[in-house]
């Protein structure tokens, strides 16, 4: 029988200064050449397990380990991390913190240098690794000047260069747009095609990885709750939902169609597989259920008039942008990494000032006000809540903004109580935000802005780092605020979230707005989407294959209604 590359027996690990084990009772075997996905929401134990497999736990990260972990024939407790690094490579989520060198080739050569690989061999290994990840020609560039996707590919090359038997990726595409993410996964798959490498990927979402992985390990609360092929795991819809993992729309719908008597040779995991046996789908529910819940009111609240922003290095972050945003609109700004989305919204609150043109907020030029003054009208939720949170209790964090604005004590307390309820933070008021999960921190950051009651709310990538349950909670709050008349501006890479919640969309590319208009039309602009390197949302793709072309639906519930006349799932 083939010997396992990784063999874990009854393993548990408790971090120092915590009482609950991060992972417990783990039994797992992984074989050579496999691409294995450790799947689960934030805090489920997938990163801890990855670090233990790599030997960084227990050698570098302190805590109590029980049971045994054998990686590439080495018991991790008996070898230090430097020795383990000869056999394994670890790629972290954030490329910024794993690139230290001033040139790409120095970065890739770092681990070879530590292993004292001779110069000639080092050069050929560096060239091979860069070739494999498609980064030849970038050798002398500063890693800091690369895009997010390029940085992550350099990070992969830097572990690949020493040709380790085992490669571990901890949420490698967490900060990337869908196209860059797919490129990274394709690179991982290409590396594995030789059969010499075993790959472990830790991720929150299975959707983008269905085609890439051989085996899935589903984790929840530190325990393995299921294992199997992607199709086997996807059959367990209820379990996935309980574990906070998003179930792809075509899988959900495929299972429902199976329950209604449609026959599939295997569980459909792509839109094409889903619609194949259906032929021309006959449905009695062609009439549109109202889905144009436009709450936009009269009156422009934000206006960009021929705005250009040129950075000090000469790069144009915005290039002659003109756009008007109406009161009560929910607009999503979409585009790949570096398209200019964050640069655009930074002008609204005054974090950046236009090089040319004007930005008006409530008919007043934003340049007339300081950022703090604009914060009374515009709430800005940053991508990483850790950059905003610093008080030692949730309550202090929420009341920080109103105190800055000089509100009366009574008014602050009244607003804080109300917002704590809106953000579902009741009972957490006296907790230290540092100990909260990423989803809870995001809600604290949201509450600390909402408490100032701004009319306009900007969300910068609210989906990043969030599992499905946290995201649903957060977006439910945002949707409610929108219903109450707030103007919402959201930057996101998540096309499904944009489709589900917004009523207008702006598609950006290289500092320009390629297209702007109602969400009902946005995702049918095939050429523009292609140019902006964006994908059509999955649920819309299915609807357009099953039903007539250019059918607009917002989410799976609406699609289900169009197909079966019911919104609730039958399974």
């Amino acid at each position, binding site marked *: 029988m083939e010997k396992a590359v990784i063999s874990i027996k009854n393993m548990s690990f408790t971090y120092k200064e915590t009482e609950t084990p991060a992972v417990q009772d783990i039994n797992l075997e992984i074989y050579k050449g496999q691409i294995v996905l450790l799947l689960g929401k934030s805090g489920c134990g997938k990163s801890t397990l990855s670090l233990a497999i790599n030997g960084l736990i227990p050698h570098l990260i302190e805590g109590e380990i029980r049971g045994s972990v054998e990686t590439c024939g080495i018991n991790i407790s008996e070898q230090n991390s430097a020795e383990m690094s000869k056999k394994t490579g670890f790629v972290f989520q954030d490329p910024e*913190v794993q690139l230290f060198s001033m*040139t790409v080739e120095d970065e890739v050569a770092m681990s070879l240098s*530590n292993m*004292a690989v001779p*110069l000639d061999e080092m050069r050929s290994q560096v060239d091979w690794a860069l070739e494999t990840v498609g980064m030849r020609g970038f050798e002398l560039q500063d890693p800091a000047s690369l895009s997010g996707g390029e940085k992550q590919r350099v990070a992969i090359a830097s572990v690949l260069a020493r040709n380790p038997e085992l490669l571990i990726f901890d949420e490698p595409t967490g900060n990337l747009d869908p196209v860059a993410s797919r490129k990274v996964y394709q690179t991982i798959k290409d590396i594995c095609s030789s059969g010499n490498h075993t790959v472990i990927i830790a991720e929150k979402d299975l959707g983008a990885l269905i085609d890439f992985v051989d085996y899935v390990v589903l984790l929840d609360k530190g325990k393995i709750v299921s294992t199997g092929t992607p199709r086997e795991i996807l059959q367990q819809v209820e379990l996935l939902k309980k574990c906070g993992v998003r179930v792809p729309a075509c899988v959900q719908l495929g299972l429902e169609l199976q329950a209604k008597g449609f026959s599939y040779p295997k569980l459909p995991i792509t839109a094409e597989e889903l619609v194949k046996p259906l032929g021309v789908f006959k449905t009695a529910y062609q009439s549109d259920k109202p889905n144009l819940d436009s709450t936009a009111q009269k009156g422009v609240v934000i206006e960009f008039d021929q705005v250009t922003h040129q950075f000090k290095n000469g790069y144009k972050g915005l290039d002659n942008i003109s756009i008007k945003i109406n009161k009560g609109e929910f607009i999503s700004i979409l585009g790949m990494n570096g398209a200019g989305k964050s640069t655009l919204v930074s002008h609204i609150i005054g974090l950046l000032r236009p090089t040319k043109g004007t930005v008006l907020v409530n008919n007043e030029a934003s340049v007339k006000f*300081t*950022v703090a003054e604009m914060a009374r009208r515009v*709430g800005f939720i940053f991508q990483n809540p*850790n*950059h905003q949170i610093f008080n030692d209790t949730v309550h202090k964090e929420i009341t920080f903004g109103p105190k800055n604005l000089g509100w009366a004590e009574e008014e602050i307390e009244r607003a804080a109580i109300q917002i704590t309820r809106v953000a579902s933070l009741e009972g957490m008021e006296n907790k230290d935000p540092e100990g909260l999960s990423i989803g809870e921190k995001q809600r604290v950051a949201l509450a600390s802005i909402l408490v100032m009651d701004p009319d306009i709310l900007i969300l910068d990538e609210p989906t990043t780092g969030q599992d499905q349950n946290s995201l649903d909670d957060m977006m439910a709050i945002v949707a409610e605020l929108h219903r109450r008349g707030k103007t919402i501006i959201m930057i996101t890479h998540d096309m499904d979230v944009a489709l589900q919640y917004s009523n207008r969309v702006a598609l950006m590319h290289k500092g320009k707005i390629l297209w702007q208009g109602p969400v009902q039309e946005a995702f049918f602009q095939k050429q523009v989407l292609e140019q902006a390197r964006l994908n059509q949302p999955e649920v819309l793709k299915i609807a357009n294959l099953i039903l007539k072309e250019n059918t607009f639906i917002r989410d799976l519930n609406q699609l289900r209604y169009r197909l079966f006349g019911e919104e609730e799932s039958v399974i």
Partner: protein
Amino acid sequence: MILFEVLGIAETLVKYEPGKGYLHTMNPLSKLALVISVFGLGIFAAAPGVPWFWGLSLFLVTCLITSTGGVHLYQEFKDRKPYIIFIVLIFGVMNLFTGRGYEAENILFHIPPWFTVTDVSVQFAVTKTLFLLTSIVVFTLLLKSTHLSDLTYSISKVGMPYAVAMITATSVRCVPMVTNSLKVTYNAQRARGLDLDKGNIKERIKHMGSLMAPLILVLIKTIDLMAIVFHSRGLDLSNKRRTHIREMKLSAVDLLTIFISLGGLITLIILTATGIIEWQFAG
């Protein structure tokens, strides 16, 4: 915010710029010898009693080497000229008052009870400021024309513990990281109504706490993660065997530079220590 400008200047100083000048082709060790030599001579030139034109000459020679060697300082700093002038002026004025304790023949300016400017304090301020400028230029010469990894590898090869070389190089690399984290935190706090752009000095200092607390937390987390990444890349500071992606040979020019730089400095130290050269105040 002036803090960003200071960090921006520091970032510009330490960032390697590719080039084809002679400084880029020299071995890091010979450039390091040049830096040590200029720095040492700068200390002599800034000592009390040394005529200011020695400091000026050293500064001009350093600028000449830098600009002819392919490091274009003016291009790099032309956008930040007002801040550099401001920093230099502040430094100069500070030294103008701290230099008043020396014996002086002429009091040039006096505001009772503390502010006294003498001919000696002017001399002190000028020489110290020239020393600051020379040090900035010579370190820039080294860092802008040398890959940090080349420098780390070279100095560890001549006996400096690799841990020290590595920490030095990583600290330099951290400058942009700190700047970025500070910018994000600064913006995030302003977006919550914290007015860091207005108010008196007392209020601004009070607000710095709200800026520094999340910044320090983020930096601690980042540094923790960096340590983990280093170890996952096989970093073992006790390991003495290490190779490098570029060949680091010493050419005849490098050897000559090392000989002249360090030879000159050592000679000067010996002559001073033995009393053959005695520095006199030229006042």
